[in-house]
């Protein structure tokens, strides 16, 4: 495990930033540093799956990753950034304003090199359809923290059908009161118990 990966997994933000600056000064390719950070995020995802890291660790790691990405951005060319793994439209469903879980998923997806179109909270079904069509995206990740908003998930899936794009879009749902029962109720394709599960799902369906 390289130093960059090690520091990120240890959540040593200040030391990591220093190490990145030193690497840049020493002429290490920015794309290599970014790739190391992405490898660190993959390792953190693994630790999370093994219950050796927890939600707060994911949030801290995402914040550090964001800081390093911002630091590297001026040095990266479009080619350095590489081909993303795919596009994912994300949002919290209509009538639900909770954004914390959604934001963790957005950060983890970005760190895993997905292009994320984040529509925010309280998103009407038609807006999800529009974003999927405009961005030619094949994955829709819906966040829902309220049992009273299951109908919003259902309506969003129905809106995809009405727009004729249901077959092209993989729908994953997540949030505290969401499980396989809600998948069955709403007609979604899967549920993610946590942010890492969402990342794994996106990798699976966009691979």
């Amino acid at each position, binding site marked *: 495990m390289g130093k960059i990966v090690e520091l990120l997994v240890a*959540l040593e*933000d200040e030391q990591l930033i220093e190490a990145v600056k030193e690497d840049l000064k020493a002429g290490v390719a920015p794309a290599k540093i970014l790739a190391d950070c992405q490898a660190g995020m993959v390792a953190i995802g693994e630790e999370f799956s093994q*219950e050796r*890291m*927890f*939600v*707060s*660790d994911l*949030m*801290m790691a995402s*914040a550090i990753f964001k800081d390093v990405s911002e630091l590297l951005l001026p040095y990266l060319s479009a080619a350095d950034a590489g081909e993303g793994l795919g596009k994912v439209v994300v949002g919290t469903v209509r*009538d*639900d*304003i*909770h954004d*914390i879980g959604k*934001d963790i998923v957005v950060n983890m997806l970005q760190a895993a090199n997905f292009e994320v179109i984040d529509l925010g909270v309280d998103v009407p079904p038609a807006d999800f359809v529009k974003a999927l069509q405009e961005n030619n995206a094949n994955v829709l990740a819906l966040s829902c923290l*309220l*049992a*009273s908003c*299951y109908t919003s998930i259902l309506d969003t899936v129905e809106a995809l059908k009405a727009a004729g794009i249901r077959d092209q879009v993989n729908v994953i749902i997540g949030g*505290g*009161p*969401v*499980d396989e*029962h*809600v998948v*069955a*109720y709403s007609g979604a394709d899967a549920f993610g118990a946590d942010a890492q599960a969402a990342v794994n799902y996106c990798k699976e369906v966009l691979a």
Partner: protein
Amino acid sequence: MMMYNETYDQRYQKVQEAIAFKNKYVVSTYMGQSVPPTYTDGITLAEYMEDHDRGLQCFLDFMDRLNSEAPIDCINFAYPGGHQGALTLAWLSKINMPGKELPEDAVWQVDERKRLEDGDYDLIIEAGGLGPIYDRLLPQLIDQESLNRFFKFYGEDFDAVMMKYVEAGYPVLNSGIVCPPFETLCGGRSVNVFFMDCYKQIGKVKETQDVMMSGLLEQIKAIDKKDYLIGRWIGHWRGASNMINQKIWDTLVWPYSKKLAFALLDQGVTPIMHLDSSWDRDLERFKELPYQKCILNTDGMTDLRKARKVLGDHVALMGDVPSQMLTVSSPAEIKDYVRRLLDDIGPQGVFITAGCDAPSCSKYENLVAIHEVAQEF
């Protein structure tokens, strides 16, 4: 010796026996703060929340209706009077309410944002409490009338309110929320910022929590212990084991929860550890609480079978039919869930109820199913 009335006293006895693992049958417990207006004609959720007299009556009528279908032994969290004030103070957040920011029948939602500034830890420490924070934030978060209604409900009206449950024969387990400092700061800073604080300035957060604890402990000491007062929730939402890494949990969550539990017990009040999300990692720690004096109230995400295995007869368990099942599953599925659970963990020291809180859109027949199947155990 008769305490209040025969029905109440019998049920109260059953509750106390369950806490001490002396109950023969499972305790059938109602939980569903926002459900009653869904199944009552002529009252919206907004009216139910706003008009305490009508709201409380609606709640009690709903209890009677359910009880006529299948017996209810007690209530976990009763009519949520003054709820906007309670939640605002607990989480230092704006609570969007039905009929105000939300449609008439939409359940309340927390609008969590960073409202505590970077220097506010020092401000709390220097002031010796949240006084200046309340002065600055409360006018932004809640109107004075709603806040007054909260103080009135839990102040001058409280005794009369609780006696309504007594007269109706329903012991109420939770008579108020104790919010640990971790949860209050998390709401006020917003979770994204607060969790970063926990890594980058854990000492400062701890110092702030210590100051806030003094105030909480004083409030607990001032509890006027009436016979009907059974327990209080110690609320755990963001401090769950699956949310927080071990060091932060060991430093900022558990020591405070434990201390609050002991303080409540000193007043003769049963600590009800209300646990959102999964606490599987740290179940062993609940053995540090006094033997057969506390209740763990889970939401379906903590593994109650594991809890029983780890904790044995140390603490009573309350849970945990998941809210999603109450909304989308059938009564047969609910019964199957409850039967499997009770077959595995047994009825002793168990309060069977909805996990966390039954949502307002719970199917009526699913709520009945919980209490019906409880009779088998």
